């Protein structure tokens, strides 16, 4: 019962604040703050799904690092909103919105067809120990490649961020 209440509340908050990211036309700063709320309620859902390590990672990396980077850039550039008013291609936007809403209406019964039993998992499931055990054995190569990707990202960000490229 408690689990269901937590699930419905955090799923509702996640969807509403995700809509807030899209609909906050006035101020981009509020959109970024809505993004934080979405990330945090998704972290609650992850922990509800016995993925404690990923939940903590979500709070640290997404809510902590990524959104702070967004806020930093928004405040640095002093960006105003107002990008959705009377502008070009209104017909395409209406068609896009209708397509997305229609696809969502179609999606819900499609996804609810696949009912399966929910297995019991042990207390070890989703802990740092279990994830680390899988990550450093079966997925060692992917882990190393992720490190190389991060290095390439750092170099790319520094090169792009430089005022003058020599």
């Amino acid at each position, binding site marked *: 019962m408690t689990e269901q209440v937590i699930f419905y509340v955090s799923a509702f908050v996640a969807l509403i604040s995700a809509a807030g990211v899209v609909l906050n036309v006035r101020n981009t700063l509020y959109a970024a703050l809505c993004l934080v709320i979405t990330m945090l309620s998704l972290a609650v859902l992850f922990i509800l*799904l016995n*993925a404690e390590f990923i939940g903590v990672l979500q709070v640290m*990396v997404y809510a902590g690092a990524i959104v702070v980077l967004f806020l930093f850039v928004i405040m640095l550039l002093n960006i105003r909103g107002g990008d959705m008013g009377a502008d070009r291609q209104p017909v395409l936007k209406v068609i896009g919105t209708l397509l997305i809403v229609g696809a969502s209406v179609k999606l819900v019964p499609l996804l609810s067809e696949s009912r399966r039993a929910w297995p019991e998992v042990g207390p070890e499931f989703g802990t740092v120990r279990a994830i680390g055990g899988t990550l450093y054995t079966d997925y060692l190569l992917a882990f190393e490649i992720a490190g190389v990707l991060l290095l390439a990202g750092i170099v790319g960000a520094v090169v792009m961020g430089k005022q003058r490229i020599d």
Partner: protein
Amino acid sequence: MIEAWEYQVVAGLLFMIGTLGVLVRRNVIVIVMCIELMLNAANLSLIAFSRQWGNHDGQIFVFMVIVVAAVEVAVGLAIILRLVSNRDTVNIEDTSLLKW
């Protein structure tokens, strides 16, 4: 008891909201945020499937997605900073040099 499909519905709707944002918004920063929303929807789906099968592989994939998202945001925001300092706009309609 919550079933697997309820998580998949939440993930699907979240992905749809992200797609809608990419389609209707013209602010580059908001578009990058909506891409993050879509990545998070995929993460939720992967975690729910990982719980459904009692297998850790989905959580490893989510770890990799988080790494890619962090790199994407770092490089993307650096590109946006360049864009603003060169052309003084965050509206993608004003940066249509490569548009066919």
